[in-house]
Every structure is written in structure tokens, then in C-alpha cells.
């Protein structure tokens, strides 16, 4: 038998639970009342987005604005949930549903009074309620959750929203072609030239770095030829290749060459090592290796053995040579220390505040010199390290000359292997330089061709065909300012034209084409490339840009076809044939000699080289 108090507690709990259900029912009703608002907004917004094709920003704004109706719902429901409920709502709902005439509510109200304030009838009312069985009381039925009348509207809007979300509004629109960067242009002819140059380097090289870089270079050339790279990407890849090649450090190479020259100077003091010294001084390391081997053989053989005096001079030369790089480093260090002392003196003067402007300038100069000396010292140290083995072997050879020639010869033979290694590295450096040159040439080519666009490529294509002796197809409209069929090589529009079609040489005084002889009185010169005609205008480095006959006024050696005829023929038949090859080689050699002797300004070297590349012989 459950006591009265327990039963009342049970009733109180039931009443509380019923009250909670009532609160939730109210909140649900409020939710159903307000839910159509954000749903309707979502439907309208989604429709607008789909039909009007609104952009991301507009969509974002709509989404942000959608928070307002959503907030209204949240606030509305929260207000209902949080607002104070009537204290007896739960118990009254139970009384109403079970038709108890407020028995539970009155009993719970009287129960809250202190016992001494309760009358007999109150106690009876409490006891009367306590006789109720909680099992028979149903909060769920007393406080049902009603189906809101707005539920149909909410479901309808939700379904509409779902349908809209999967709906696709098809709009026909013209899609503009994507703007892409035009591919970098490289003619087939130039690609062939580059490819052969790089292949030549790759074939001669044993160095993995050179080989790998050459292979990458090939890929870049192929991509450019196929139009797979745009200008930006092409320049980026070329810069990357250049960086790989430059990682070796040109400065260290120069220091090594200087160290070899110092070595060569010392070795030149002895007749026995003079060939070796000469070869080293000129950078012909393979010859130097041969010379050293020969010396070692000579020392070993009994025939033609050097005299003691020669051996003594040899010893001294070898000894000094072995110390040359160290001596250089010491000299640098001494110089550096002297300059440091000077700098410190000037710094102290500056701190004291007694330095003048001249002192400040001198200090600045000293700082720069010290910086340079530090750099040279590092480079010299690097070179010394590379030559350390060679130095040691030369030193051992010098020492052994006094005791045993055979041993000395062995040392010299081993030293030749070091020179061989250096030769390999030198060759690698040369190959690197050649690749760099080609890289830079290609970059300049792309830069120039990029300025003139597809028209330039068309010109190159026709030129290449004619260079091979083929008739080109119908030409594209020529660029304004240039004659049809003329390929301009040079800066801007003032460069020298390379004619694509042959022109009958006019009767130019001094022209060799008709008679095959040089006419000295009419402009012919005594030697190759020294003649001149009246149509050649401008200076050697800034020829005028008009097309004119290419006439070579040459010396008639009486040995076969004259150069002018060959050149004339080339303009008609293309740059083919053995004769043309010979003429080209001669002229090319002259051009390179001029470039080597720095008689051409650096900015124009590319154009001269480009010119000769374009008129190179074709197969």
C-alpha cells in the first residue's frame, strides 16, 4: 500500500510531465505557425537563383538574408518555450482530461500549505486525490501534441523546396571561347637547329647533369614546336634549365682557370714542362695530359733521359707549381689582412668622430675590396681543393726526382690522371656554357618572335622552305612596312633583310656575277669580304633596311665557282650544296672572329649569329 505522500509525489510528477508536454505542444504549434516563413523565403530565393542565374555573391546575400525568417522562427519558438507557464497547467490538464473536478490540482495546492494551516476538509481533499491511481492517469492523453493546421502548408512548401532543388533550368547561352595564352612560336627550322646543337652537346658529354639538362631542353624544343607551351611557361622552363646549369658556379670555374694559369707559369720555367705549361695556360687540358704522360715516359725510358741540370730545373718547376695555388691563397690572405687593418683604422677614426668625407669614401672602397677579396679567397680555396691532388702529386714527383726517377715518373703519370679529370670537368663546363648559350639564344628568339606574332612564323616557314630549295605555298598577307618575301633580322624594323626570293642582280659596278672577276676600280677589295658596292649602305653594324642585291665581291682565286655565284645561286636554289657549304663556313668564320675580337657591340651579336643561323646550309 502506497502511502499518501508517495502517491502525492507521483501525482506531482505526473502533473509536471503533463505541463512539459503542454509547453512542447505550444512550442510545436508556434513552430508550425512560423515555419512557412523561412520555407517560403527559401522557395522564392531558390527560384530566383535558378531562373535568374544569380552569381555567387548574390547567392551569398540571399543566404544571409534567409537568416532573418529563420531567426523569427527560432525566437518565436524560444519565447514560447521560455515563457512562464501557468503553475497548475499540468495538473489541471490531467483533471480536465480525466474529469476529476480539480481534485489533483486542489490536493497539490493544499499540500503546499503547512499542516497547521490545513483544515479538515483540505486534508480530506488531499486524501481523496491520493486515492487516485497514477497508472490510470495519462499525461499523453491529457496533453496531446496536436497536429497543427499549418502542417499541410509546411509539408507542401518543403516538398516544393525539394522539387526546386532538383529542378534544372536549362538556359541556352553562348559560351565565349576561353581566353588562353597563345602558344610560344618556334619555327621548324629553328627547332631543327636547336635540336642538332643540343644533341651535339649531349653526345659529347658524360656528365649526368649535362645529359639530363640536354634531355629536358629537347623536350622544351619539342613542346614549342608542337605549340604546347605558351610564352609564360616556355620562359619559365628555360629559366629553370638555366638555373640548373648555373648551379656549378661560373665564378669557381674562373678561379680554377686562374689557378691553372698560375700552375702553367711555374711549369713553363722548365724546358721539360714547358709544353705542359703552355697547354695548361691555354686551357687545353687534354694536351696537357698528353704532355705530362710523355714527360713521365721520358723519365722512365733510358733513352733521351734529361740531364741533371734539366732535372734540377724540372724539380724546381714542379716544386713551385705544386705550391702555386697555396701561394695564391696566401697572397690573397695577406692582401685581405692588410686591407682589414686599414679598414679597422678608419672605423676607429669614425667612432672617434674624426673621419672626413675622403675617409668615408676610402672606407666604402675598402669594404667593397674586402668583399671581393673574400669572394676570391673562397673561389681560390675551391680551386685549391680541386687541384690539391695534382699539387700533391707534383710535389711528390719533385721530391722523388732526387731519389728515384721511376717513382717520379709514376707520380707524374698519376698527375696526368688528375689533369684528365680536370679536363673532363672543363669539358663539362664547356658543354654547360654551350647549352647556356643555346638557351639564351632560344629565349631571345622567342622574345623577338613573340613581338611579331604569327606573321613572323609564316615568314620563317616560307623562308625555311626556300632555304631548302622548295617553292613555298601562297603567302600570308605581309606585314605593313616590310616587303613581301623579305625576312628581317635585326632590332626593330631597321634590321637587315634576308631575301626569300632571288633577284636578278642588277648591273652593279663591281658585281662579280657577270664576269667572275673582281673589279677593283668598282668597289672590289683585295681580300675576302673587303669589297663594297654602292647599294650597301649604312655602317657595318647598322645596315640599312632596304632590300638589295646580295652580291659578294670576292677575289677570284680561279678555283671553282666564285663565291658571288654561289651566293646568287643560293638565293634562287636555296642554301644547299657543297659549294654553298664552303662559302658559308668561310663567312661564318670571319663573323665569329669579329665577334671574338669584340668588334661587335654585345647587343648586336645575337643578330649576327641569328643571321648566320638562318642562312646556314640545309640538307
Amino acid at each position, binding site marked *: 500500500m502506497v502511502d499518501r505522500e508517495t502517491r502525492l509525489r507521483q501525482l506531482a510528477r505526473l502533473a509536471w510531465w503533463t505541463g512539459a508536454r503542454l509547453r512542447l505542444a505550444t512550442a510545436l504549434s508556434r513552430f508550425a505557425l512560423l515555419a512557412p516563413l523561412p520555407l517560403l523565403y527559401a522557395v522564392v530565393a531558390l527560384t530566383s537563383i535558378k531562373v535568374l542565374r544569380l552569381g555567387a555573391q548574390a547567392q551569398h546575400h540571399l543566404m544571409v538574408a534567409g537568416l532573418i525568417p529563420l531567426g523569427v522562427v527560432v525566437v518565436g519558438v524560444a519565447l514560447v518555450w521560455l515563457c512562464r507557464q501557468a*503553475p*497548475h497547467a499540468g495538473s489541471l490538464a490531467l483533471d480536465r482530461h480525466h474529469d476529476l*473536478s480539480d481534485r489533483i490540482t486542489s490536493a497539490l*495546492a*493544499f499540500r503546499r500549505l503547512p499542516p497547521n494551516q490545513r483544515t479538515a476538509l483540505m486534508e480530506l481533499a488531499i486524501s481523496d486525490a491520493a486515492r487516485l491511481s497514477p497508472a490510470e492517469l495519462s499525461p499523453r492523453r491529457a496533453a496531446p501534441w496536436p497536429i497543427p493546421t499549418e502542417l499541410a502548408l509546411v509539408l507542401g512548401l518543403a516538398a516544393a523546396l525539394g522539387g526546386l532543388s532538383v529542378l534544372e533550368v536549362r538556359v541556352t547561352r553562348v559560351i565565349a571561347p576561353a581566353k588562353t595564352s597563345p602558344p610560344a612560336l618556334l619555327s621548324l627550322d629553328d627547332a631543327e637547329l636547336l635540336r642538332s646543337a643540343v644533341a651535339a652537346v649531349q653526345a659529347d658529354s658524360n656528365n649526368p647533369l649535362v645529359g639530363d639538362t640536354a634531355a629536358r631542353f629537347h623536350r622544351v624544343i619539342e613542346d614549342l614546336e608542337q605549340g604546347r607551351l605558351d610564352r609564360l611557361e616556355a620562359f619559365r622552363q628555360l629559366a629553370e634549365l638555366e638555373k640548373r646549369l648555373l648551379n656549378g658556379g661560373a665564378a669557381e670555374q674562373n678561379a680554377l682557370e686562374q689557378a691553372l694559369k698560375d700552375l702553367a707559369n711555374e711549369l713553363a720555367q722548365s724546358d721539360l714542362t714547358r709544353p705542359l705549361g703552355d697547354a695548361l695556360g691555354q686551357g687545353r687540358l687534354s694536351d696537357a695530359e698528353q704532355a705530362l704522360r710523355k714527360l713521365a715516359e721520358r723519365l722512365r725510358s733510358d733513352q733521351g733521359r734529361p740531364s741533371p741540370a734539366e732535372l734540377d730545373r724540372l724539380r724546381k718547376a714542379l716544386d713551385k707549381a705544386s705550391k702555386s695555388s697555396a701561394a695564391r691563397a696566401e697572397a690573397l690572405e695577406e692582401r685581405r689582412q692588410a686591407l682589414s687593418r686599414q679598414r679597422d683604422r678608419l672605423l676607429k677614426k669614425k667612432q672617434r668622430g674624426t673621419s672626413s668625407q675622403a675617409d668615408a669614401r676610402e672606407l666604402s672602397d675598402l669594404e667593397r675590396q674586402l668583399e671581393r677579396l673574400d669572394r676570391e679567397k673562397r673561389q681560390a680555396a675551391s680551386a685549391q681543393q680541386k687541384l690539391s691532388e695534382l699539387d700533391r702529386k707534383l710535389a711528390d714527383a719533385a721530391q722523388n726526382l732526387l731519389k728515384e726517377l721511376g717513382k717520379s715518373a709514376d707520380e707524374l703519370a698519376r698527375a696526368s690522371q688528375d689533369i684528365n679529370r680536370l679536363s673532363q670537368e672543363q669539358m663539362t663546363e664547356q658543354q654547360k656554357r654551350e647549352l647556356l648559350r643555346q638557351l639564351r639564344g632560344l629565349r631571345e628568339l622567342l622574345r623577338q618572335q613573340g613581338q611579331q606574332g604569327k606573321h613572323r612564323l609564316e615568314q620563317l616557314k616560307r623562308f625555311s622552305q626556300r632555304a631548302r630549295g622548295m617553292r613555298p605555298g601562297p603567302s600570308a598577307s605581309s606585314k605593313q612596312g616590310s616587303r613581301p618575301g623579305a625576312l628581317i633580322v635585326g632590332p626593330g624594323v631597321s634590321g637587315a633583310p634576308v631575301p626569300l626570293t632571288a633577284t636578278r642582280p642588277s648591273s652593279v659596278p663591281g658585281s662579280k656575277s657577270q664576269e667572275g672577276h673582281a673589279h677593283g676600280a668598282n668597289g672590289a677589295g683585295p681580300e675576302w669580304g673587303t669589297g663594297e658596292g654602292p647599294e650597301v649602305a649604312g655602317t657595318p653594324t647598322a645596315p640599312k633596311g632596304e632590300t638589295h642585291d646580295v652580291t659578294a665581291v670576292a677575289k677570284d682565286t680561279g678555283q671553282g665557282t666564285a663565291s658571288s655565284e654561289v651566293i646568287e645561286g643560293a638565293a634562287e636554289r636555296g642554301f644547299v650544296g657543297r659549294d654553298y657549304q664552303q662559302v658559308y663556313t668561310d663567312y661564318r668564320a670571319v663573323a665569329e672572329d669579329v665577334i671574338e675580337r669584340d668588334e661587335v657591340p654585345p647587343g648586336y651579336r645575337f643578330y649576327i649569329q641569328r643571321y648566320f643561323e638562318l642562312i646556314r646550309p640545309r640538307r
Partner: protein
Amino acid sequence: MTDEDRAKAQVSEFTEQISSLRAEIGKVIVGHREVVDGVLICMLAGSHALLEGVPGLGKTMLVRTLAECVGLSCSRIQFTPDLMPADIIGTTVIDETAGTRSFEFRRGPVFANIVLADEVNRATPKTQSALLEAMQEHRVTVGRHTYGIDEPYFVLATQNPLEMEGTYPLPEAQLDRFFFKLQVSFPSREDLHAIIERTTAEHTAQVRPVLSREQIIAMQALARTVPAAHHVQDFAVRLLQATHPELDGATQQVKRFVRIGASPRGAQAMLLAAKVQALLKGRFAASIDDVKQAALPALRHRLLLSFEGEAEGVRPDDIIREIVEKLPETLA
């Protein structure tokens, strides 16, 4: 025996006594269950009732039957326009007995336990006020003497809604003294059959007293001890406030058609009636339903309609029903 047991026994006895009283009254009065209960509630509340109905509906019969069932003295006053106050409260006469002359106050019909004041609206206001004073004070003052009226004192006044010409409608202040205003409706067909059978037969039903005066007084005292929880009392208060157009809880109809709302006597009447109602149903505490049940008879005569309400023909009953329907049972 504990207080609870005693109280329980009292409630049980109350229920039985009321049941027997109802049954006894039912021998004579056919139908009119609500009116009979209303009259009983008024009596047990120690107050008075105003009955309104056309003649011949058994109002007088009810009062007489009730008086016979409870063994109380009963008097009937037929109010006419020429009725004087002395006609109801009594008068002083000269008494000549044994050769002496003295003034003797002869009590009027108002000095009964149960008084039926028929067609009270036919008498003049002066005569009406004489009755109403007795109803309020439970005593009569004549000259310099005050004469008390024996308890229980219960006045049932009647009004004839048909004859309005030459009548003196009770003023609102006077109407407010009546606990309930009960509408006596025309009996149904079945009830009419029963009425005719009973009243036209050879033998009419006879009632006997089932309650004594002391029992009624005890019952009145018990009714006042019935507790009403705060939420019940609060409901009665809010119900009363809702009849006032100037207050917040008033409905649109109240604001439009009511000029003056019910006085606090209305709330007292509702609560006291709810307590009696609870006892009548054998419960130990009053409930909101009891208050709702008492609202109509307790408030219908206490609302003063506005001109628009009267012109529209709005009935106070409709206004009170709307209030009861819309008023929330609890307030946060």
C-alpha cells in the same frame, strides 16, 4: 474520531440530506432541476434568490414546497403597486386588552424564514426598499425598535418579464443583493404531462419535512468551511474582472455592450456557490467547474448593459457564456 472523520461524516450527511430534500421537492415540483438546485444553493449560502419567469411556472409552489420540506415558516407577499412598506414589515397597532391600551408591533410577512416576494417589481421603490433592507440586515427597524428575523432567512423574489407597464424595475444596487437570479423556463412537453397528471389528479402529492432548522444552519456553516484552492479563487476573480469593459481581460463583447461590470458580490456569490456545489457533489473542495456553473446565475443580474447592448438586444447570459468560454483556467 478525528477531525477528518468528522468532516467526512458531515459531508456525507450533507449529501444525503440534500438528496432527500431534492427527492422530497421532486414529488411536487416537476423538472426545473437547475432552478431547484439554484434555490437550494442560495438557501445553503444563506442568501436570497430572484426568480424570473412567466406566471404559472410553479415559482410559488416551489417556495411553498421548499418551506414544507425544511420545516421552516414561509410567507408569501404579493407585491402590488399599492403595497405599503408596513404591509410587508408590519405595523404597530393599539392593543386593548384587560382594559389597558398599549402599542403592539404586529410583525409583517417578512418575518418568516422563507419569504416569497411575488412580482417584487410591481411595488413601489419604497416598499421594495423595505424588503431589501430586511433581506440585507436580517432585521427590521420600526420606530425606535429593531426586530430581528430568525435564521435561516431566505427570500425568493419573483419578477414577471411580461408585464413591464406600471412596474418599478429593481435598481441595480438592489438587484446586486440577490445571490442568484434564476430563469424559470417553460417546462418541456414531458414535464407538462407530469405537471398536469400531478395537479389534476384526485390526490396531490404531499411532502414532509426532511430537514430541520438546525440542520439547515449546520449545513450553511459546513458550506462555508469548504476550501477553495487559490487557482479556483483566482479564476472567480478573473471571471469577475472580465465583466468590466475598462479592464484588460474584458472580451470584445464586454467592451462593446457592457456599461458597468459585476460588483465584488458577484465573486463572493460565485465562490460560495462553488463551495456549496462541491458539497452537493460529494467533494471536499471547490473546483473551477463549480465556479463556471455558478457564473451565470451569479452574474446575469449584475451586468449593466450599455445603450448599444440594449439596442442590439444582447443578453447578459450570452456575454457571460462567452467570458466563461474564453477565459483561460490558469494564468502564468
